[in-house]
């Protein structure tokens, strides 16, 4: 079992969440080249060490959040919501999210 620290629900079994993937910034669709889109959609860094990822809390609060996981140890370093600056959020769990709900993304 792997514990994933949801910022809303607290530590949860990873089976309660969906792994979305590595967190990359989305290119501007008006200016991105096909190569940039392909890199964004399909290419992964896959490091052995800290990796910024997106997770979806499908059985809990149904919010997306980003977290940094060490891929060598499965330890999570922090757990901000998407758009939040890493390291800027209250480290305590159970605060109320101000992010939008994610209806239709179950």
């Amino acid at each position: 079992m792997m514990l994933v620290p949801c910022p809303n629900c607290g530590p949860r079994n990873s089976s309660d969440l969906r792994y979305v993937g590595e967190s990359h910034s989305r290119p501007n669709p008006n200016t991105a080249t096909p190569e940039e889109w392909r890199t964004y959609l399909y290419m992964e860094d896959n490091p052995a060490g800290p990796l910024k990822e997106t997770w979806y809390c499908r059985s809990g609060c149904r919010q997306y959040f980003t977290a940094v996981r060490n891929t060598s140890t499965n330890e999570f370093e922090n757990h901000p919501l998407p758009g939040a600056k890493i390291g800027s959020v209250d480290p305590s769990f159970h605060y109320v999210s101000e992010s939008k709900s994610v209806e239709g993304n179950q």
Partner: protein
Amino acid sequence: MSDFASSVTKTYPEAADAALTLTDVSATAKTLIRADITAAAAQDLGVAFGASRVVDGTLVAATRPTEWVVLGPEPQVAAYVAAVSDAGHVSKVDFTHGRALFRITGADAAKVLEKVCSIDWADNMMPDGAVVSASLAKVTCDIIRNDVGDARSYFIMSDRSSGQYLFDAILDAGDEFNMGVAP
């Protein structure tokens, strides 16, 4: 709601006096409210994600950061929901027919739940009134601790389509604790 038909259609021997009981209370009126947490409705509802409260004969539970469920007798639920502010981004949906709702009551209730769900049911993590959403026997459920007198008790709410399966799965998990089906 006279025309309500529960998703639990099997019949079970009744054991109303069992120390640990499972009851199908799906006919309870249920209204879903979604609102931005900055909307007046969130203030009216008065509980943040993970908590519930009893108000005006209803149970108001915050099941997501921006979602609440109001449970209770139909007239009280309708009256309470109507009084919640509609200002801003607010939606209210009666989903009584869309959800299954069970109540599990007894000192061993948490022991049954921990067999089928990875949540920590200890009193300091999940006290009376606490609300959690989690996978229970692989079905996503909203679970509200709502003790009855001194007896530990939980509401378990799932999608209607999973109701019969979930009812049987909980009964199966409760078998070793002599769980009975109460009316």
